[in-house]
């Protein structure tokens, strides 16, 4: 990883909806984050290993590997324990337990406003820098 990239706050977005992912990427980029996008869980895992994001925002309903599986895999890696995982879902409330059980730290419901998504990320980075 380049020095520049290593210094930045890195966010990985995993979502099969290309436009949604692209829009979010542009938004976060606007606020100074380095953002990569994957469209499937498998792609996401590969990117996660390479890009080493601090924060991962993942959709749940994806073809192939679901967001739950993806989160479990991320958590199972050594580095995974320190990462901040956000689930972005369009579904109902009963998923909360499952989301947390799979390893996510937080859950946001689509559509989320910029504040909705920036807040937890900012807070995470703020508290991380304090440590």
């Amino acid at each position, binding site marked *: 990883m380049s020095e520049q990239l290593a210094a930045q706050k890195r966010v990985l977005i995993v979502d099969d909806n290309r436009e*949604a992912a692209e*829009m979010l990427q542009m938004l976060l980029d606007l606020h100074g984050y380095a953002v990569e996008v994957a469209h499937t869980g498998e792609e996401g895992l590969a990117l996660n290993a390479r890009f080493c994001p601090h924060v991962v925002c993942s959709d749940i*309903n994806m073809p192939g590997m679901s967001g739950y599986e993806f989160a479990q895999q991320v958590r199972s890696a050594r580095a995974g324990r320190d990462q901040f995982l956000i689930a972005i879902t369009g*579904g109902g409330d009963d998923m909360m337990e499952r989301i947390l059980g799979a390893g996510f730290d937080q859950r946001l419901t689509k559509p989320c406003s910029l504040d909705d998504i920036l807040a937890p990320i900012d807070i995470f980075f703020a508290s991380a820098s304090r440590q």
Partner: protein
Amino acid sequence: MEWLALTSSAIAFGLGIGMGLAARGRRQAPSAEPADTNGVAGERRTDIVTRLDEYKHVIESAGIGTFFWDPQADTIRWSHHHYAIFGWPTDMPVTHAMFRQRVHPDDLAAVDAAIDAAMRKGDDYAIRFRLCLDDASVRYVRGSGRVRLDDKGQPAGVNGAIVDITEATQARSASRQRELDLASVALYLPDIIGRFDRDLRCLFMSPRIEALTGRPPGFYIGKRPNEFGMSSNLAARWAAVIEDVLRNNRVREFDFTQADRHQVERFFITRALPSLDPEGQVETVLTISSDHTEREHDARQVREDGASLQRADRRKNEYLATLAHELRGPLAPISSAAQLIRFSTDRAVRNKAREVIERQVRQLAELVDDLMEVGRISSGKLEINRQLVSVQHVIEQALESTRPLLDGKGQRLSCVVPDTPLWLNGDAMRLVQVFSNLLTNASKYSPPLAAIGIEASADDTAVMITVRDEGIGLSAESMATIFDLFVQVHATGVEAQGGLGIGLSLVRQLVELHGGKVTAASNGIGKGSHFTVVLPRAQHGAALPSLPASPAALAAAPLKVLVVDDNVDGATTLALLLETLGHTAVSAFNGLDAVRLAAEEPIDMAFLDLGLPDISGVQVALQIRGTPKGRKLPLIALTGLGRDEDRYLTRAAQFNEHVTKPLRIDDLVRITREVAERRDSR
């Protein structure tokens, strides 16, 4: 001892006669008896007395009154009990007349007749009759007697008896009355009534049993349940219930199914009730069986409907969850894009964001449209407008709308349709929707580069269109429900491309609204599927036999045509034909309207019937020609007769052409094509 005397005299009489006869028979034979006549005779006398005593006891305890009547002397001797039956004091002098006075007037004739007959023949008589006693009470009695004739053949004496049978008669008549009541109740009740005795034998069975089993009540009387022709299990249940009621004096209820004489299974509920004798013991068991078959069917139907409604409700709830999810999809990028526009000054970024919003909004709009369709489908409010439309036209439009999708996946399309048009009476837009849907599904559920086919064929009454694919296929179970609303067949590995799963349900509704049928078939998962739509052909008669339906004949350049004919059917048919060819038609049914429309509408040509109600077609033409717009307007005259003078007229009025009705299709195609060419070449 008067009784004894009377009876003994009666018996002695008989004995005496007997002995006398015997004596006469023996003549003066030396007596064989021993000389000790007094001792033996004395023994015999004692013997007789003892026996008479015994008889007396028997008769007394039986409640029998006895009499001896000498009709010639008119003397009657009655026993004590006889007096008791008549309610008179013992030893009161009685005559036959007095006896007759007490006989019930309605029975007197029969009693006289019985006695007279016996008296004539020296015979026995026995008759039941009523007595009307002094206290105005009525007694039922049975009178009997034996008449003895003298050697002149005249009645010499009558020995007889009388018995009071009032109680027995009343009991019997009460019981008969009960039976009669039961019988009339049984006749009119729809339920089947039976009565069983302590031996489980049937005493009564209502006539309705015959309608059920084909056997009359008589078949059942005297039989036990196991002889009725029921299954042995059922007979055992009947027997057990009846015995329970007999033994425990309680009401029992049980149900069973039994096939009737037509082999239809019927469902019964039987109640068994104890019927008590005067002492309060269970004497018989009444059974009342109600046919609950219809109620049972209704109940079953209600249960099934309930279950089916619950299933539908569950599906709908799952569906609503999916819907919410689907709707949120486009909202996310729209929201992000909006915020990008707010925060970014980069033109490229903002353009991109704007594009995204437009695209996603379109998608949302489609979803909402689908949702509206769902509402219409659910409440059965889909409407179709019927017109004459060719299958070829419909398929062509459907292919056009789905081609981008197929091309995007590199899927090869094959289309096999006959050359001659196959006409349907239906809503063109909706029919196009049907086949677009089927083609879209075929594409969605097939891999890239797969082959997809659509073919149309017909027989005398129907048109068949089949859409074939080599995609993921259908399982046998899903076949039954894929046309249901809210059902989406998910297969792993296939990207769920969104949408609301209403496609096939819409297809089915639309096809059925057109009087047709759609079916799905597949050889299994991964083995492709094909959907066949059958639609009734338009019965339009000979009007459109040879209209070519290939795209070349379909108007490349649609015209707006004015059709004028006071015959509404004629005008409508011509208008329809023109529309089928791809033109727009506007109709007028009289001359003045024709002139007005020609002025107001941007028409490219007009067909004018010459015989109009207000002003003639020729007049209309002249007026149109008088306007700047109408000077060069192609006008075609339609007449019923190709008379020469008409041709002259039409030429004078500067009609471009004069054709005779009915207009041949070939002429129509030619004329419109010529007009189109002329117009477009200008």
